[in-house]
């Protein structure tokens, strides 16, 4: 299992590929540089691991880095329960469409985001959304995939990882932002 290869093997990227980040500290630095980060959480976070409460985790992370969080589906209920001020609900396709528009004022009217963190989507679905942003939003934003897979169309991606390894990575990331 090559770490920097598309997880779905056929979904080979074009010439522009994500920087593979396997050091959580490095990723933390990259994230901290963002002025307006956004986290997009897909419904699959509910199924990814039982070793970590991902809802809690994402809220914690968002709090630390001052990110807006957009949840794309029914998991919004879970997120609402935990309470977070900058929590929004919007289908992923609509978010991506807006992210491509550099004039979009964001969820709070203060402008588009400069860093978008994806987690919890079907691999190909995320691959495609990231690719849209790679080509059409690269001037104003960068993207990170936090899934335990190499997502070649992000700006920065984790490698293909086992779940245990990934959970550790996430923990360390949180500690370092």
């Amino acid at each position, binding site marked *: 299992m090559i770490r920097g290869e598309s997880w779905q093997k056929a979904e080979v990227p*074009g010439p522009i590929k994500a920087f593979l980040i396997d050091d959580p500290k490095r990723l933390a630095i990259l994230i901290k540089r963002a002025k307006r980060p956004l986290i997009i959480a897909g419904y699959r976070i509910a199924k990814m691991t039982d070793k970590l409460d991902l809802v809690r985790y994402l809220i914690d992370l968002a709090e630390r880095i001052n990110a807006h969080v957009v949840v794309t*589906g*029914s998991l919004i209920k879970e997120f609402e329960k935990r309470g977070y001020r900058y929590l929004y609900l919007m289908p992923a396709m609509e978010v991506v469409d807006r992210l491509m528009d550099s004039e979009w004022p964001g969820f709070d009217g203060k402008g588009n985001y400069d860093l978008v963190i994806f987690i919890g989507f079907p691999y190909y679905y995320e691959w*495609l959304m990231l690719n849209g942003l*790679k080509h059409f939003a690269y001037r104003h934003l960068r993207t990170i995939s936090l899934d335990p897979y190499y997502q070649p169309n992000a700006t920065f991606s984790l490698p293909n990882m086992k779940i245990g390894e990934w959970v550790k990575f996430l923990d360390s990331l949180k500690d370092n932002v």
Partner: protein
Amino acid sequence: MARKLKIKIDELESGIARIKGLEVSIGKIVEEWEEPEGPTPFPTVADLREWDLKLLSRYKPMYMPFCDLCCLCTFGKCDLSRDKRSACGLDMATQQSRIVLLACSIGAATHTSHARELVEYLIEKFGRDAPLDLGMDVRIEAPITRLVCGIKPKTLGDLEDVLDYIEKEIINTMAATHTGQEGSNLDFESKVFHMGMLDHLALEVTDIAQTALLGFPKADPNAPLAELGFGTVDTAKPVILCIGHNVVPGAGIVDYIERSGLTGMVEVCGLCCTAHDIARYTKGKTKVIGPISWQLRFIRTGVPDVIVLDIQCIRTDIPLEANRIGAVVITTNEKNCHGFPDKTYEDPDVIVDELVNRKIPGALIRDPEKVGEVAVKAALKLAPLRAKYKALPSMEEVVNHAKRCRKCRECERACPNTLPISEAMTYAANGEFGKLAELYDYCIACARCERACPAQIPIFSLIAKAAERKMKEEKFKIRIGRGPIQDTEIREVGRPIVLGEIPGVIAFVGCANYAEGGKELVEMCEEFLKRRYIVVVSGCAAMTIGMYKNEEGKTLYELYPGDFDAGCLVNVGSCVANAHIAGAAIKIANIFAKRKLRANYMEIADYILNRVGAVGIAWGAMSQKAASIAAGFWRLGVPVIVGPHGSKYRRMLLGRREKEGNWYVYDARTGKKVYVGPVPEHLFYAAETKEEAMVMAAKLCMRANDTTKGRAIKLTHYVDLHKKFFGKLPDDLHLFVRREADIPITMKDEILSALKDKEWKEMEIPDPTLLEELVRRRI
């Protein structure tokens, strides 16, 4: 615009011009239709481009490239990343739209080719003058044809004019994909719409021809129920399996059985759309195995003796799979020869011998009657010899295979749904088959896992074996395709739909490339049925929907009536019957609202966009045909939602609700531009989850013309579904509530307070249109 009229002569007897049955029926079509011709008979893409660009200025294409390269000519590969342009000057957006057009071209060509061969076959059999009788209740026999071409087809022969037009236009439109032609992504999108419209025409031609002449149910809400599912097959009998989309060879088999007095002695079952149509042909007497993803499921059980392939959506490795189980394969169409020797002119008994004794790898027989004879005779001969094949691997074999698993996860990396196969193998190696059996529900039976497995474990067979009990219990009912919607039904539901009192028409259509199993589709379907939407289904989706039962053992088809009415479940039929869904929308404009149909595309599409709350959900849309069908709906103003895999169509058509300027219409009464809110908000959209899809579908049913009562009903469902799945009110209600009266009474306080936060103000309710020419200006 003047239009060529062609006159058909029956046939030339020989090379020398002796003609019989000459019939110069000039003006026939025109004379019998008092309605004056509208502005766009037999339109080319340029004739409707204005409409397309209107739609596209609201619903902007959003591209998610599925490939960053182009490999279509020898300048390539070209890297189109970001701001690069290719050797032919294209940028990424334009390339993506070009590929969408190419996909839709394939789709439309495929449907048209089917239409043409079917019409030719029926003409040969019934003559060019055979009437297109769809029954008493269907006077508007061909709404799409009337709308697009501006003709009223009366006979099979008339359909040839339609086909000539479609073929010419497909060619003309797809030519734009050649290196160095169209350079604008919006113009490519306009051509996509055009291609979709042509596709719908072809669907209509096919389904009205076969419905009229092959004895299919004619707009019958009480069309019989057929048996559905693997478990309904009597495996003790010789089994013939038909796969594909063209009913003709299947009909040939059924006819031969009847003719030879073999009724009841051979099982004929169908898979994919041909299953629908054979069942329509036999009024429900043949078995429907299931949608496209049941091909391997069924063949791996070893049950079928003879497999008859016609066209479209057929696994191309069927000959290999058949070979493994000792079954024989007959191909029936030049589009799908499989390298088999052409036995069209061979003696049937010789072919049977060659097939059964493996002298040939399979036979191509382009003669449906002969297919019937050969398939039946071969099945009868073969069945007794094949007993040993009729089984999946044993449980012991499963364990042994599972033990060989190296946990490399290559299978998972090949699986479109990234199913947890390696984990299931671990359990299976220890004799626990639950995990393996679970995969069955989420697996689309594509076998990519097997091909990727370095240990050559027949993964899919293992899954099937683990789920064997489930499979055998697949015994369901499906209401067979009823074909068109009656004019009278339209008359009755037209008003409540247009005014918004029926909350919407939801059409579940398309293929079975589900990301999370077919059950999701059933749940969605049931939700809308309970909410008394009109639910229409077709194709593979219609089969999937029949494949679940409630606690009392009833399928949705048994629980809900087949009328085109609120809270009913209408199976129109196979994919080509999708024409009737578009046709119903068109007929609403015509029958209920008296809008002129003839060659009047833009006005009718404008009507549907602004007034007919219809939404398509193609949850497992897979193919190029599905793409072109969707495109046909877009141009008509009907939004389409696809499942997650639909994102691979690489282009969405999305509105931006907050962009106020995008949501103005003309008030046809005054010519004033009036804000109506984002209704419908999107034209094409890949949802992530079924919950998202349901909420979105309810929302997309809102249209500018809703009365306050209608809007209140639609909002009720939108809000209710939103609360149910997302736990709270939608935050965009202020865009949909035009006056207080729009607010559902039961939700009044809650919504009003939410509106206050958004500084909501009352809006006008116009007589909405996007077409300036429809404004009846103040005199």
